[in-house]
């Protein structure tokens, strides 16, 4: 009897402790933190000239930003954009993207460096 009771109390504690801590997730006191949970990527601060395109982090950032700009382009109504002059789009300077190999970006995985994890350190 008694051991059963102890087991039950133990189980209740095991469930309650994580449940309560988890449910308190939203109670951080800096109100800025609950202002907006889902933010768009801020791609404006990316400096392409400093990015090493062999680094998975850099490639992942490019992908995120490309996907994001694509999805916002899709929402535009292109039929209404008369006389759009592409030659004036000079925001992106590809010559500054060192080591960027576009042929590699299509692939699902970036296989580099996994044979030797330590070279990153």
């Amino acid at each position, binding site marked *: 009897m008694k051991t059963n009771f102890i087991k039950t109390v133990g189980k209740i504690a095991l469930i309650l402790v*994580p449940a309560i801590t988890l449910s308190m997730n939203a109670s951080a006191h800096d109100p800025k933190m609950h202002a907006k949970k889902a933010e768009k990527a801020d791609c404006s601060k990316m400096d392409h000239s400093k990015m090493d395109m062999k680094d998975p982090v850099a490639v992942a950032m490019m*992908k995120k930003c490309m996907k994001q700009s694509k999805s916002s382009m899709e929402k535009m109504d292109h039929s209404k954009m008369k006389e759009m002059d592409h030659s004036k789009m000079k925001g992106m300077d590809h010559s500054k993207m060192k080591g960027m190999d576009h042929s590699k970006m299509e692939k699902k995985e970036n*296989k580099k460096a996994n044979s030797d994890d330590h070279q990153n350190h």
Partner: protein
Amino acid sequence: MKALKILLILLLLGGASAATVMYSGIVNVAADEPHSDIVYWLLEETREASIKKSAQHIKVPDLESPELLLMGGADYEYMCSSCHLKPGLEESDMSIGLYPQPPNLSISHETHQHGTDEELARQNFWVIKHGIKASGMPAWGKTHSDERIWAMVAFIKRLPTLTPEQYQVLTAID
């Protein structure tokens, strides 16, 4: 016969003193009251040994892909950063109030990290999947696929190297 009797008495005594300690209420379960050094050491050694043993046969996949970082980044920001912090966020209610304290996963722990990258990866995978009892660390495996958990392992591996700007881009929603 005599030895058996003594053993029985000892058992009974042990049980009785354990019950006394339990029901007297002298054990303080408050999270703002740290364990004594000896209790802390006992719990920590037990936890480390358990994780090491349970994780030893887990096969670690390739963790170097950008897709994994993106998948794991979004999940980390949403589910983990309130406890385990992120670049630019050095403390939160959770990181201060929980005991045991959630480790800050956005800074590198090279000084006290034991084992290879691979060992660390499989141990992190196991902890994320199964959680840690009575600590506030949930078992995410009940609600998330192994693939998503490996993605978080991959993300955590790079997390200490990320600037706040890199973190923001990687973890933003699409």
